[in-house]
């Protein structure tokens, strides 16, 4: 009783020697050979290097992928507007005066009505034949002021 009260009050509490020996024996790690230690360290370093390389590769491919996506998107955004401008400049401008107006529609309409040779390029609605629908398409393009396609009342 007196020993317990002394031990509780002091800082240098010590286990019995026999218990200390048993605990040490239970937790004592076996000695690791230096070669094995070196081998483990080397393989750990190699594994870390691989992981590092892989992470860098992923980062770079993400960067390259993003750049490629931006380039592709830019091309897709710019290319249609460019080609549609070309498309508008060419399609329907039958008399090649640089604009689509009623004279273009008239040229096609007259050729159809007189049985003259029809230029396949006049198939502006791409239905495979040059007919009144193409004339109306050109007429509609000539009077379009709101930007809505096929908004024109056919003649």
């Amino acid at each position, binding site marked *: 009783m007196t020993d317990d009260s002394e031990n509780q009050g002091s800082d240098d509490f010590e286990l019995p020697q026999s218990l200390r020996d048993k605990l040490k024996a239970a937790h004592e790690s076996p000695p690791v050979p230096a070669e094995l230690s070196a081998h483990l360290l080397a393989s750990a370093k190699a594994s870390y290097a691989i992981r590092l390389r892989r992470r860098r590769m992923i980062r770079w491919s993400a960067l390259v992928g993003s750049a490629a996506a931006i380039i592709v998107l830019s091309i897709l955004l710019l290319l249609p507007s460019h080609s549609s401008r070309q498309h508008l400049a060419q399609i329907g401008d039958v008399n090649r005066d640089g604009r689509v107006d009623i004279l273009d529609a008239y040229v096609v309409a007259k050729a159809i009505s007189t049985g003259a040779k029809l230029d396949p390029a006049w198939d502006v609605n791409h239905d495979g034949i040059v007919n009144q629908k193409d004339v109306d398409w050109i007429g509609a393009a000539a009077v379009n002021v709101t930007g809505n396609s096929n*908004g024109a009342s056919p*003649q």
Partner: protein
Amino acid sequence: MKRIVPLIFLMLGLLGGSAPEASRINATQPNVRFAAFDVLIDSGKTPLAAYQVKIVAASGDVTLVGIEGSDQPAFATAPYYDKHAILNKQIIIAGYSLAGSLPTGKTRVATLMVQIGSSTKPDWRISLQVAGGADGKQIPATASIVEHSGEIRP
């Protein structure tokens, strides 16, 4: 049945009340009138085969409500126009004729039907974009717009 009868009377009352309301709305727009304006192209001595004009209502409470062809047989068909622009203040109209006998001089090519919302006379700006002869080539011409005189075709 006793519940349905008052409901029927209530509905009849509502219907009876709404009809005079609708007629009152129309009656409270005093200055609204409809008018027709003719689009004329003067191609001089050259036969006119095609035309394209831009028309802008520069001032006045004007709303385009319809476009018709002319009483001139060569341009009797309604012209091309952007139907989305019909309620706008500006429109492009265009037409061509494949008739054997094409008109010369001042030709009425189309008639605009407009709703005028005030007593002020509408101020039109008309510009000829192109006029063409029978060969499809551009010809010199002038365009004008005047209030329609005479009967408007139904």
